[in-house]
C-alpha cells in the first residue's frame, strides 16, 4: 500500500525526502555509473512485476517485491525502488508526489536489509536459496508494513487506528509474498543462477573488463 498525498505531517514528508535522497545517493555511488541504465531497465521489470495481482479469496493483492528486489540488486535496489515509485506516482498516482520520499523509505530500506540477509544466508543448495529467498520476501513485506504503520503513526494518536489496520491488512500479503518469492528464487536458481550472485552488476564488470 502506498501513502497518498496529504496524509503525513509536512515535517515527515520533507524529512522522508531528505533521508531518501541521501540513501539514493549512496545507492547510486555503489552502482557503477555506466551501469545505471541497466538498473533503470531492471526497474522497469520490477514495475511491471508489481502490476501483477494474485487472487486472495474474493479480493486480490498485488505483489510488492521489495524482498526480491533487494535479493537481486543488492545496494542498487534502493535506487531502483525510488525510480519505480517515482514512475508509479507519475503514471498511476500510486503514492502521492509529496509522499514519494516517505514511500521510498518504506519500500527501499526493507529491500536493502533483505538484500544483505539473502546474500549472507543463501548458501549453495537450491533448496536453501529458495527457503532463504522466501524468508527475505516475507521479511521485506513485513518490514515495509511496519514502516508504513510507523509513518502513519507520526500523524498523532488519531492515526493509530489506521496504522493498526494497515498493519493487519498486510498479514496475508506477507504470506503470499513469501511463497511467491520462494518459488521465484527457486526458479531463478534453476534457470539463471548468475542473477542470484552478490551484486550481479559487479560480476558483469569482470567479464567486460
Amino acid at each position: 500500500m502506498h501513502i497518498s498525498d496529504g496524509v503525513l505531517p509536512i515535517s515527515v514528508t520533507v524529512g522522508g525526502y531528505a533521508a531518501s535522497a541521501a540513501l539514493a545517493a549512496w545507492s547510486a555511488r555503489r552502482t557503477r555509473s555506466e551501469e545505471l541504465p541497466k538498473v533503470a531497465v531492471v526497474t522497469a521489470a520490477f514495475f511491471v512485476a508489481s502490476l501483477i495481482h494474485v487472487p486472495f479469496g474474493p479480493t486480490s493483492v498485488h505483489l510488492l517485491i521489495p524482498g526480491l528486489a533487494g535479493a537481486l540488486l543488492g545496494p542498487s535496489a534502493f535506487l531502483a525502488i525510488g525510480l519505480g515509485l517515482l514512475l508509479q506516482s507519475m503514471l498511476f498516482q500510486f503514492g502521492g508526489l509529496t509522499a514519494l520520499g516517505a514511500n521510498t523509505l518504506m519500500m527501499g530500506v526493507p529491500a536493502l536489509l533483505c538484500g544483505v540477509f539473502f546474500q549472507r544466508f543463501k548458501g549453495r543448495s537450491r533448496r536453501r536459496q529458495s527457503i532463504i529467498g522466501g524468508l527475505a520476501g516475507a521479511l521485506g513485506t513485513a518490514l515495509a508494513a511496519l514502516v508504513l504503520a510507523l509513518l502513519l503513526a507520526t500523524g498523532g494518536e488519531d492515526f493509530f487506528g489506521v496504522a493498526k489496520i494497515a498493519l493487519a491488512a498486510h498479514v496475508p500479503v506477507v504470506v503470499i509474498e513469501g511463497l511467491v518469492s520462494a518459488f521465484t528464487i527457486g526458479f531463478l536458481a534453476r534457470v539463471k543462477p548468475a542473477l542470484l550472485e552478490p551484486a550481479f552488476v559487479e560480476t558483469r564488470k569482470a567479464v567486460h573488463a
Partner: protein
Amino acid sequence: MPEVTEVVLAAWQFTALLLAPLAILAAAAAGLRRLVRRRGVQTEDPDWSVPPLADAGGATLFHRWDIRCKLLTLIVYSFIVASLSRVAPALAAVAVSLLALVLARASWERVLMRLLAISGFMAMLLVIMPLTAPARPGDTVLVIGGVDWIGFNLRGLAKALAIVAKAVAIALLMEPLLTTAPLPVTLHGLTKLGAPDMVGQMVLLSHRYLHVFRHEAERMAAGMRVRGFRKRTDLETLRAVANFLGMLFVRSFERTERVFDAMRARGYRGRFPASAELRMQKADLALAFAWLAIGAVLVAYDRLGG
C-alpha cells in the same frame, strides 16, 4: 473546557451513517472502473495499460509555461496544499486544481484513472478514522444507545475529509504538471533545477522499457491463458505466478545486456544529448508568483480561519 458531546443514535441509524458514504464511494469507484474498462478487452487482470506521459498537443497556458517555472511552482504548491489542516481550505485547493485542469484542457479520462487509484486508500481513511480517533474534550461523538465500545467521532471524520480533499487536489494537478510537455522536456527541466542528470536519464530509460516489458508480460500472460491457466487462491497459482515473474526477470536482464552493449557501441558515455532549449520570460515568472500567491492565501485561510 467543554466535555465530549455524545449524541446517542439507534443502532440502525448508526449503521446507515456508516454504510451510506461507503456505498456511495463503492458505487462511484465501480462506475469509474466500468467507464475506464469499457474501451479495453475484458481480461482477468485489472489494467495492464501504461498511460502515456506525452504532450497531448495544445497551446494552453500550461503548455506555454516554462518547464522550470512550472515544475518548481507546482511542486512547491503541492507541498503547501499538503500542509493544510482544515477541510474548507483543502476544498478550496480542490477548486483551484479543477480550474487548472480546465485551463490545461487535460484528459478527463486520465484524471479519473488517477482518482480511481487513490480511492481505495481514501475510502479506508474515511471509514477507519472516525471510528478510531480518540475522543478529546470538545469533540462530538455519535454512539449507539447502550454500546460504548464504538463511537463515530466527527473530528476524525473532519480530519479524514481534509486529507481526502488534499490528496484529490494534488492528484488533479498531476495531469497539468506532467502531460503538458513531452517527458524528455519535463526531465530536462528537472535537471536544470538541480536534480542529478542521472535521475532524468534513468526515468526516461525506465519509462521506455516499461512499455517493452509490459508487452512481454502480456504475451506471456496470453500464453498462460491459452494453456488453461486461471488464477485461483491456491499454491499452484502462486507457483505459476512466481515462474512468470522469474521468466520476466530473466528475459529483461538478458535484454538489458544486449541493449546496453548496443548503447555503448553507439558511443553512450553516461549521458544523452540535451533535448531542448529553454527560455524563461517575464510572463512565466508572473504566473509562478500568481500561483504561489494562491498557495499563500490558502495557508493564511487555513491558519487564521480556525
